[in-house]
């Protein structure tokens, strides 16, 4: 918040100078953004708040709360709440309930907004105006934001904003949030004197046909001329939804996503690895040898580095998904996938979370919110962690590199790539089988209603893609800086106590080694020794920590000290044990962040407990079978 120098209408200007953060959030006026899905609400939110936004959950419900701060031209700050996209205010879904409660001031955790920005798609005004009725009837000062004004103009549509404003008794702004047109008017509204709306008439809110008639009437009086049908969207759909070309494009898109994962990300990941190696070597050279240096390098730097290496891969994948989503293609992909997903009892909307789960299960589980059917949503959440995420990929790569020589199969395919692909397929098949089992038993539901709006194709904007990637990076790095860091530090301590005469014990006699030995009988049938056991325990927090763990243990073990990690593992595992380890990682739910997000999204411990138990049993029995079938 900047110093409030020349602001007259600012009643709190006296208190505007530095003050504790706790009272700061109470001063700005609160404004809520409301609108139907696909009205461009989030784009406007990004325009208004830029980098000053954060995402959280409304307490107690699974609805995402986007809040941000918009700085007015006069320097004042306004708190902006981006409410979930809604079609009506009759509180039937959780989204609508939250929007209703926030707007009427019934949520104790959110201040009642003093003004509303109602965002409507001007290219589909007659239908979107239906939402204006319940919003205006709240009696809160409202600006009607007619978004996508550039589209309306380009396709020969028209609306008389003065006439519309007169009908609705509220100011109207024609805006293109994507291009930044008309944003000044939105700021002017937020800064100006606020008046309650005075619509000439309002329909009976519960009656949808009456609301639609009212909206049509208002549109006619505002001389609304709907735009010509979107020619480009029709043309593109004639390819993307073509009986032959459609599935082909779909397959190419999915292939491109995985190609990005496997190849395009590699140079970037090598770059990050190099940065950590060089900086680690520099720290080693700078600090005198001590327990602290060992903790910093072997515990913190290597542990965190082994995770941060994945950042480019995760970001590239989210960039890809962001482009698909913002351009409108993802809705078509969901449409194409629907029939196939229906075979295992799911639906097209489950496709998007399952695709994103290949980058990370946590945001994938958050994105299941678009699935209205609760049982379909739960089933999608329960199978998402089977998808091969980059953390698994790293473990796979290490073990495959240790055991499988690089060979050409049939002259073209690399043997290692084929093994990786097999593991992707294994996870996918486990997900499909689980979905089928769930949907024919505890999550059985009748034929699900599948309603999906096909938005017009649009160019994604750099700003919205950038903000999305920034948000994902924050989540990812926070995880590396908290869970993984903590586990690595604990492991380092466990591996260095109890000390003998001030010196660290042999790894075998350390606490970590003792724990490994204690669980050895349970994992011996899988072909694992106590060292792998320690790795399995630390990987309960996050899969990839097993690599740092094994690196630390083998590094401290005189027998394997000299060689690299791959040859140390090769020395310690039989081929059967190696396959068992791969199978174990393919099925097990070793990720604290995923467990936490499942608990939050399903509203209790029941589902995450069931999921963890099921996946663990599957992992153990799968690994047991592998260890005994392959010798």
């Amino acid at each position, binding site marked *: 918040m900047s110093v409030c120098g020349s602001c007259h209408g600012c009643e709190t200007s006296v208190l505007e100078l530095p003050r504790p953060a706790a009272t700061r959030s109470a001063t700005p006026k609160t404004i809520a953004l409301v609108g139907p899905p696909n009205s461009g609400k989030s784009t406007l939110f990004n325009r208004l708040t830029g980098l000053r936004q954060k995402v959280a959950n409304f307490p107690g419900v699974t609805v995402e709360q986007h809040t941000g701060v918009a700085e007015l031209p006069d320097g004042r700050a306004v708190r902006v709440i981006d409410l979930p996209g809604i079609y009506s205010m009759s509180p039937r879904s959780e989204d609508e309930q939250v929007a209703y409660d926030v707007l009427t001031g019934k949520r104790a955790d959110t201040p009642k907004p003093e003004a509303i920005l109602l965002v409507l798609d001007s290219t589909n005004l007659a239908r979107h105006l239906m939402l204006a009725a319940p919003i205006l009837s709240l009696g809160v000062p409202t600006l009607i934001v007619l978004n996508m004004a550039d589209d309306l103009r380009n396709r020969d549509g028209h609306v008389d904003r003065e006439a519309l404003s007169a009908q609705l008794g509220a100011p109207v702004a024609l805006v293109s949030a994507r291009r930044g047109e008309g944003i000044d008017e939105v700021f002017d509204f937020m800064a100006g004197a606020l008046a309650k709306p005075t619509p000439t008439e309002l329909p009976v809110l519960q009656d949808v046909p009456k609301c639609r008639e009212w909206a*049509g009437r208002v549109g006619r009086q505002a001389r609304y001329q709907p735009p010509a049908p979107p020619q480009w969207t029709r043309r593109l759909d004639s390819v993307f939804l073509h009986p032959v070309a459609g599935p082909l494009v779909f397959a190419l898109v999915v292939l491109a996503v995985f190609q990005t994962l496997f190849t395009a990300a590699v140079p970037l990941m090598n770059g990050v690895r190099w940065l950590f190696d060089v900086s680690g070597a520099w720290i080693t050279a700078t600090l005198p040898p001590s327990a602290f240096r060992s903790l910093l390098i072997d515990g913190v730097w290597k542990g965190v580095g082994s995770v941060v290496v994945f950042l480019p891969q995760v970001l590239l994948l989210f960039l890809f998904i962001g482009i698909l989503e913002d351009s409108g293609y993802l809705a078509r992909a969901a449409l194409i996938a629907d029939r196939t997903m*229906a075979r295992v009892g799911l639906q097209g909307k489950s496709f998007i979370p399952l695709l994103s789960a290949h980058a990370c299960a946590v945001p994938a589980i958050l994105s299941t919110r678009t699935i209205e059917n609760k049982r379909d949503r739960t089933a999608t959440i329960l199978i998402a962690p089977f998808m091969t995420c980059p953390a698994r990929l790293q473990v796979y790569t290490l073990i495959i590199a240790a055991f499988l020589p690089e060979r050409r199969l049939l002259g073209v395919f690399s043997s290692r790539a084929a093994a990786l692909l097999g593991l992707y397929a294994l996870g996918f098949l486990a997900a499909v089988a689980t979905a089928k089992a769930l949907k024919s038993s505890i999550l059985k539901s009748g034929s699900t209603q599948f309603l999906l*709006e096909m938005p017009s194709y649009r160019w994604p904007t750099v700003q919205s893609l950038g903000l999305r990637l920034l948000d994902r990076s924050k989540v990812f790095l926070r995880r590396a800086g908290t869970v993984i860091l903590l586990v690595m530090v604990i492991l380092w301590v466990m591996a260095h106590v109890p000390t003998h005469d001030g010196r660290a014990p042999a790894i075998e006699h350390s606490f970590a080694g003792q724990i490994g030995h204690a669980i050895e009988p349970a994992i011996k049938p899988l072909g694992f020794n106590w060292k792998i056991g320690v790795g399995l325990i630390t990987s309960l927090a996050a899969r990839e920590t097993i690599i740092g763990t094994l690196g630390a243990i083998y590094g401290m073990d005189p027998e394997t000290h000299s060689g690299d990690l791959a040859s140390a593992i090769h020395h310690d595992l039989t081929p059967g044990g190696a396959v068992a380890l791969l199978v174990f990682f393919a099925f097990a739910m070793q990720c604290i962040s995923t467990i936490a997000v499942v608990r939050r999204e399903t509203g209790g411990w029941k589902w995450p407990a069931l999921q963890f138990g099921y996946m663990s049993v599957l992992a153990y029995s799968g690994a047991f079978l592998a260890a005994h079938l392959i010798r």
Partner: protein
Amino acid sequence: MLQLSGNNEPDGAPSTLLDLRRGDAAILDRIDLPGDEARRLMELGFLPGARITAGFSAPGGDPRVFQVDGSEIALRRATARLLKTRPDKGTRLAADARIR
């Protein structure tokens, strides 16, 4: 429950959205779905009296996209079957006037 007019096809079962071929249009007559699900459809523009045009479909013909009230909405065949229609002739002007 949403029966607004009774002029169904004279012979046998009334036609539904499923009977429309791509590019064909018809007037929605009623929605044979329980209140909440019908309401959701109505909020998306599937109102009795609305003119609906069949658009593209997913490979295999399910789900199908329908153009209604300025947007394109995909429905599964199982749902489209429950949206009963009447032919779009003569009524066209009246319907357009009502929903525009």
